[in-house]
């Protein structure tokens, strides 16, 4: 009997020992089916600013800049969802794009090159040549000229019904003068005008003339295509360099059907423009004077390349120096000396704080000026993660293009108004180089972001995931995706670029509701805005998850 009890005890144990009788229950909906969609390794973010006001174009009024992409690597340009695009619309003044990583990987030996051509009614068309030598997010600024409110140094004249054509031929001599007599244009009777497709212009002609005076910083800042240029030189050889401008004019002639003049036949267009006497002749180092020789360049907005056209010689007129040339086609016309002794300068933002190096991105605006002349050479935006001092992994290289050799260029940094920077603004960096030299820019954490500055605000690193409601899948936010945020009720947005699936925002107030949106495929999503409540916390630096639900499409 006792032995039976023992056997029963063991049998009981064995009963427990079999596989569980409970039904296996795993609800797939409970699983995070999330993919890291940081497939696109190289992105560009372009901000379109009004050159006069400095405001983002279309930030409040819904205006959208139409951006056409040209150039050797334009076929590899994709939108946020990985779809190839050669045309984009800006959203609130921003445009983001990426590159197919398996066909366009930028390296110093094989840069990714393209040109963005920006058009918006009421603004002077402009372009931005881009050359990338490293992966990562790259930020650019395009200053656009509002014809109704141009910046200092830019005059825009729009003249209606200046003459007419029949079957493309000018019916009478046409002479156009801008209000300030900066530009004088003559078209002789019988000159044939055709558009880019070869179609003759017909009927009344309207003319728009934009003149840029290079002695004015604002005018230089919106110089179409920028001052770091790719050119086809006098002998037809391609080279890169930096322009030192003596003047720039953009002429646009349209007929009553909206056809845009491109070429002239059976005659030409005479263009006579003012040259500011304060301009320094790059070749002589002296102020320009009558008899000075200046190269004229025309611009191909499809390739972003300037082509040498001819030389002109300055003449002295009663109202000052003038440059005159006869042109066979319409373009941006540029009086420029080319400095081919230029270099790409690599900048490394570094920190001695290893804990923050991979967590806190720097987001710095910069402006580079020639120290002697205070010429605004270029401006833009740097974003990425700093590297530890003494290490250069080449992952976060920032590049200043077309920096003239043996000339002192001062790069100064500034941040976005209304935001709390994670890093203290570095001081101005003076570059005077004789070759390709890397510049190290040390960064120190901003005490107001680390919580040691006595502020009660929080610095939160958000791990951002996107749930595509139409696809039922989640993804880590792709690198380079732009987010904007603001405290509910405020009108000003702060912006930040996602890197490594995260964004870090400082200056967030506790117990406040914030609104957040991401720029996704040319639109700010989600709508209505995503609301995030910043709870009070005893820790001022923390990490949270941010989970968007949007319609991904694509």
């Amino acid at each position, binding site marked *: 009997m006792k032995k039976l009890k023992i056997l029963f005890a063991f*049998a009981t144990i*064995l009963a427990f020992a079999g596989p569980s009788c409970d039904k296996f229950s795993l609800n797939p909906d409970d699983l995070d089916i999330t993919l890291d969609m940081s497939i696109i390794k190289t992105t560009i973010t372009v901000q379109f600013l009004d050159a006069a006001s400095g405001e983002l174009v279309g930030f409040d009024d819904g205006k959208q800049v139409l951006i056409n992409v040209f150039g050797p690597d334009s076929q590899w340009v*994709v939108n946020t969802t990985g779809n190839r695009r050669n045309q984009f619309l800006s959203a609130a003044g921003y445009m983001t794009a990426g590159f197919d990583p*398996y066909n366009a990987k930028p390296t110093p030996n094989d840069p990714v090159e393209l040109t963005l051509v920006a058009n918006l009614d009421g603004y002077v068309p402009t372009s931005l040549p881009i050359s990338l030598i490293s992966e990562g997010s790259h930020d650019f600024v395009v200053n656009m000229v509002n014809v109704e409110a141009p910046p200092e140094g830019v005059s825009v004249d729009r003249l209606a019904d200046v003459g007419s054509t029949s079957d493309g031929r000018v019916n009478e001599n046409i002479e156009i003068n801008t209000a300030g007599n900066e530009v004088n244009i003559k078209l002789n009777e019988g000159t044939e005008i055709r558009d880019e497709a070869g179609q003759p212009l017909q009927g009344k002609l309207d003319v728009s003339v934009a003149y840029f005076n290079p002695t004015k910083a604002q005018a230089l800042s919106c110089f179409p295509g920028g001052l770091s240029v790719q050119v086809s030189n006098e002998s037809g050889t391609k080279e890169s360099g930096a322009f030192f401008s003596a003047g720039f004019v953009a002429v646009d002639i349209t007929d009553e059907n909206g056809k845009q003049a491109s070429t002239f036949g059976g005659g030409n267009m005479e263009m006579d423009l003012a040259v500011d006497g304060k301009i320094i002749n790059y070749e002589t180092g002296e102020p320009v004077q009558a008899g000075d020789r200046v190269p004229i360049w025309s611009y191909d907005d499809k390739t972003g390349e300037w082509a040498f056209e001819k030389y002109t010689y300055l003449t002295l007129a009663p109202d000052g120096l003038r440059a005159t040339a006869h042109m066979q086609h319409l373009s941006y016309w540029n009086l420029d000396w080319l400095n081919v002794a230029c270099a790409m300068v690599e900048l490394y933002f570094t920190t001695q704080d290893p804990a923050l190096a991979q967590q806190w991105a720097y987001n710095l605006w910069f402006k580079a000026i020639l120290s002697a002349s205070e010429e605004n050479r270029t401006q833009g935006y740097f974003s990425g993660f700093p590297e530890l001092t003494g290490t250069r992994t080449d992952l976060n290289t920032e590049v200043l293009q077309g920096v003239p050799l043996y000339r002192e260029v001062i790069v100064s940094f500034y941040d976005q108004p209304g935001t709390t920077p994670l890093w203290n603004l570095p001081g101005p960096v003076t570059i005077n180089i004789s070759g390709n030299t890397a510049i190290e820019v040390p960064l120190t954490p901003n005490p107001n972001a680390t919580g040691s500055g006595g502020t009660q605000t929080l610095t939160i690193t958000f791990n951002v995931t996107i749930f595509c409601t139409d696809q039922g899948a*989640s993804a880590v936010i792709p690198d380079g995706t732009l987010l904007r945020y603001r405290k509910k009720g405020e009108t000003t947005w702060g912006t930040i670029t996602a890197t490594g699936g995260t964004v870090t925002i400082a200056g967030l107030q506790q117990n406040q509701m914030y609104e957040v949106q991401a720029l996704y495929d040319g639109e700010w999503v989600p709508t209505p805005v995503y609301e995030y409540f910043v709870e009070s916390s005893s820790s001022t630096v923390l990490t949270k998850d941010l989970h968007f639900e949007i319609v991904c499409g694509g």
Partner: protein
Amino acid sequence: MKKTVAFLLAAVLIALPALQVSGQDKDTVQPLKKQYSALGLWGIGLKGTTDGVGFEVIKGFGSRLNIRLGYSFLKIPFTYPIAMEGISVTATANLKFGGANLFLDFYPVRNVIHLTAGVMQNGMKHSVSVTPTSEFPYGDIMVPASEMGTVEAVITPKLKFSPYVALGFGNTLSREHRVSFNFEMGALYHGAPQLDLAGTKMLSPMASENNEQVIMTAIAQYQWYPMISMQLSFRII
């Protein structure tokens, strides 16, 4: 865990008085025809179990007790392709069983049925690695399979030293014959299985803590591993 250990102890405690009682039961126990010294009665065994194949060294004590020290091992690798919506993957599984064991056999009824309890150093480790084998379309970008990464699940027992109980038929060390055969059914208690997920590249977020917890909750009920064992033993001395 505590309850389980207590339960096992209870089983052993139940078994101990039975040992004494059965030792006095002349009707049901065959008296030994051969006499062995305290240092004698050794054997070795070869076994095939659901926890692998292996060997044991067996020491007999009197007519009712054996102690077995052994080791078993089994590795089953296999690969199978899976075609899912829009993407193909290959799952590579590696099932590893075995470990060292120290068992005590008690023969309450003659020498043909025995109760076994013991402990096993549990080397069980199962892994499944899922690797995409086809391109993944992301818009117009075709992501090569090699760039998508891998997600790997590794399941290990919670208890590295697992209690073992079994009911056996036959003898693990015959006192009468050189060769004996043993069949055993039992179970290994390893506690709730532990899951470790690891992912690389695109699939890295799949190895989230949440997913680990969800799956671990679903498999938490599988705390026992059924053991069936067949063994051929040879008495040496």
